[in-house]
Every structure is written in structure tokens, then in C-alpha cells.
């Protein structure tokens, strides 16, 4: 397991596409001390690797395809109303190529 350092935390934050202040990283590094002690409790469970990971409580058992029901799509103006930058009925982004 990766040991905790500010660099590791900065790497994790960078992957999540946000920045934090140095003070926030310091606080987070301190918090990880407790958190890793708590996480150690999981590793101490003797038979922890004897079972498969549980990803959902149980299978909800949907075993059929629902009928196709035609729907009227929302107007473009409605769909775009939450976007900050719109041009020609499309969401505008910073230029990527060229």
C-alpha cells in the first residue's frame, strides 16, 4: 500500500481534477493518520480474503427487457439551458485541436 505523503495526496486530487491549498493538504495528511488506523482494522480481519468482494446487497432480479416506449425528446433549448457556454445549439468548449 502506498504510504501517505502530500505528494500522494496531490496526485490523487490531481486525478480528480481539483486543487487544494497547502493548508488543506496538511489537514488531510493528518486525517489520514486516523483513517489508516481505521483501515488497518479491515486488514486485521483474519478471514478477510476468504470471500469474494460484495458489490451490491443482492441481485434485484430484473431479467426481462422492458417494452420500447416512444418518448418525445426534450427541446434542445431545454437541454442546453444549464450549460454555461452554448453556440449553434451545442455546448461550447475550449478549443482542443488547432
Amino acid at each position, binding site marked *: 500500500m502506498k504510504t501517505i505523503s502530500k505528494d500522494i495526496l496531490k496526485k490523487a486530487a490531481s486525478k*480528480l481534477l481539483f486543487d*487544494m491549498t497547502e493548508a488543506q493538504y496538511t489537514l488531510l495528511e493528518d486525517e489520514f493518520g486516523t483513517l489508516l488506523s481505521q483501515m488497518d482494522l479491515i486488514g486485521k480481519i483474519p478471514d478477510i480474503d476468504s470471500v469474494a468482494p460484495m458489490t451490491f446487497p443482492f441481485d*434485484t432480479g430484473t431479467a426481462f427487457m422492458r417494452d420500447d416506449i416512444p418518448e418525445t425528446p426534450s427541446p434542445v433549448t431545454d437541454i442546453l439551458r444549464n450549460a454555461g457556454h452554448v453556440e449553434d445549439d451545442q455546448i461550447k468548449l475550449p478549443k482542443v485541436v488547432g
Partner: protein
Amino acid sequence: MSYLDLTIKEIHEALVAKKVTPLELVKQALERAKANTDNAFEIILDQEALAHASALVEPEIDNLLWGIPYVAKDNFSTKDIPTTGGSNILNGYVPLFDATVINLLKQKNAILIGKTTLDELAMGGTGKSGHKGKTFNPYDKTKQRMIGGSSSGSAAAVSAGIVPFSLGSDTGDSVRKPASYAGLVGVKPTWGRISRYGLFPFAPSLDHVGFFTRSAYDAAIVLASLAQSDPNDATCSQTAPENYMQSIGQSLAGKRIAIIEEIVKSKHRPEVIKAFDALVEQLKNDGAIVTIVKFRRDLLEAIFPIYITISCAEATSNAANLDGIKFGPPTWGATYEDAMRQARTAGFSELIKRRFVIGSYALLRENQDVLFLRAQKGRRLIVEQLNNIYQDHDLILAPSAPSIAPKFEDKTDQLSDEYLIADNHLVLGNFGGFPGITLPLGMLNDMPFGIHVMGRPFEEGLVLAAAQSIEKHTGLRNIIAPGEVNS
């Protein structure tokens, strides 16, 4: 006395008898909402609620939610009504569609009068991390005690007598813990029992739609209105719901109730344990067969780290669409990533960023096996042990929290028995998708504390019946925080 101080069932009877109209109810609910000082509301829907109420003229005798005002946590999509999830990154976002539960309540002509405050993106348990600041507990006029979270405002609105029911969501204990702190009935049904379509996801393997009422019978009314399959949510069960109005009346005689010794013996206030023990004796007198059972302590101590690892890891993926491009306050940058980084840096609070980093750390390639996957394995071991208990028992009973609502500045040792077990065991219901209800057990220093009853998947009827039996013994039914809006 106001009709708003009554239960849903009693208000319905008054509506049917035309002693009060939906418009009169809504006007008073809006007045109370505006007068409330607990910071319960993201938005109060004056015009929409008054228009809806004005259109309701002839009462529907068989529809117990007809004309009943309610509020919804601000992480349910509401068409043409701003929905922020308590986060600045969604300021100004106006959904194009209603969540299924909002739609079902609209069809019932229940009247939405406001959207309520929450911990940011439902990722907290204190009611102090939302972008509108702290939500206060209506029972504490000094504003020092929390109501808990993340469904803070929805709990406050029902507890303060503004509305008789409200919608919340429960990923760890986000309905049931605030219910415990606010003297309410808080329901988290079976995972898949109520559609989550239109609920902002936090951790989908743990997320549930839940709700607050002030009586067990009202909880049956609301559950009966919301429990059904939904073609828009593939995780919503096809299992037909029970007749909750009928099954709530069943006797507990002969029912087998388990009490997990390690939970009850973890650190609680003595007054809580005294009230709990007294109630257990009363349930035995009703004919319930109560057994003390053992649970592996190492698994109980791992509840919180398993929860925080799984929930934060799932949350990092679910929040990836919050990019400030498609919705949220507009940003711009040299590149798409730069624009997104600016939006997320400005839009997320410090606390939520820290939670995301925890999730990202658990998902790092070198950590996945020892953190994330092991947390999922621990979850399975816990659920297997719970299922073993349910082979011989119908219900599991426990105090819902170590004490009354804590003060905002209270510090707890996060490696203590009190924190790891007594304060976090409600998460067991989310791990296994078991239905659970918290309801008032007693009062201490004029603050409520609660009890939690949990059943087998899709057996909400028995859980409701137990809640109603408990309610009869405690006498704590339909209690409202004394205060400025309802005195």
C-alpha cells in the same frame, strides 16, 4: 392547535371532512417554513405550492396523501425547480425531469412546498457541510446541537411541525440518524424497494431513498405510496410490495427479536440503555421472543472503515460528471480539463474534496486490493453474519445512537468503541440492504433519543408493526419540537 401538528392520517380525515382545505394547509406550512430559524430550506416554493393547492378542490377519500404538504431533500431532481445537492458546483442547475418519487407524490397530489438543506452531495452526517451552512436541531433553541445528516433539512422540517412528512436519502444512516436526533420516525426500506431514478447518486451500492414521518402508521402510508417497481431504475425491485396498511397491524407475539450484545454493550449513555432495557421487557410481555446474540467484534469495529472506503470510492466515480460544463456555474479555461479543474476547485467544499481524495487513494492501483476490495470483502462477511442471525430471528433491535444529538463542536475519538460501533452500526442496514426504522425511545435533557429496528429484505411490514408496537409503549408518537413556529 394547527392541523399541521397532526399526523398524515388525522390531517387526511380533516381534509375529507372539509374542516380544512389544502390551500389553508399550504399557506400555514409556507408561513412556518419562512419563520423557521433552523436553516432547513434550500428553496421555498411559494408559487408552485399555492398553485397546486388551489387546484385541489374535492378530497379523494382513498388517497391519504391528497393535499398533504411535504418537503424533499435537495438531491432529488425536480423538473423546473433548482436542485443543488447542497453544493456550489450545482448552483443554478434546473433539472429537466422529476425523480420517480417526486412524480409519484405529484400523482397523489401531495404538495411539495420546498427543497431542504443537506450535507454537500449527501456526503456527511453532521448537517454542517452543505453550501448553506449548518442546519440546526429544532429541539435545541441555543443552536448548539446538530440534527445530523445528511438529510438535515428534511428532518428539521418534520420535527418543527412545518410538514408531516419529508423525503430524504440514506447511504450510511442519513435518514435514520437524524430521525434519532429529532424525535422522528425515519425509514430506510429495503435496497431496491423504492426507485432511485432522479436521486443524485452518492454510492449506488449503498444509496436508498428514505423518508421521515412522526408516526409509524404515517410511515406505512408513505411507503405504500412509494414502493413499486420502476422501468427507469434497473436496480428497483420487481418484487410486489406488501400491503403495509394491513401488515402494520400484526402482533409481535411469537416474533423472534435479536439483540446484538456487542452493539448494546458498546458505549452508550446509561439513560439510553435503561430505556432500551425497559422497552425490551415490554416487548417480551407482548409475547415477542427476545434473544441476545453474539457478533464478531472485529467485524463490528470495521463497519466505519469499510463504509468510508466503499462510499468514498464509489463517490469519486459518481461525481465525475460534475464538470461545470453541462451544468453549474460557468467556467472557462485554456483547455477542457482546465475549465473542469476550475469548476471543481471552486465548486466543491474542502470537506468533500477530502472525501474524494480518500476514495481516489483507495482506488489507486497499488491500494485497490488492500483497501477497496478488502472493504468489499469485509462487507460480505458482515452481511453473511447478519443473514445467519436472520435465519433464526425476524428482527434486530438496537439503540440508534449512543446518546442525544451531539453539539457541533463535540469531538469523539474516532478509534473508540463509541464511535466505531455505537455511532455507526446503522450502516449494517445499507451493507445488506435490510429495511430499518428509527423512532423515538425517550427524552434526555429535553432532547430525543431513538431506537432502531431492522428486518429481512422486503419485510417492511413487520418492521413497521414493530415500530408501531414500540410507539405504543413509549407514547412518543407525533412529537413536535416546541418552538417559535408551532407554539
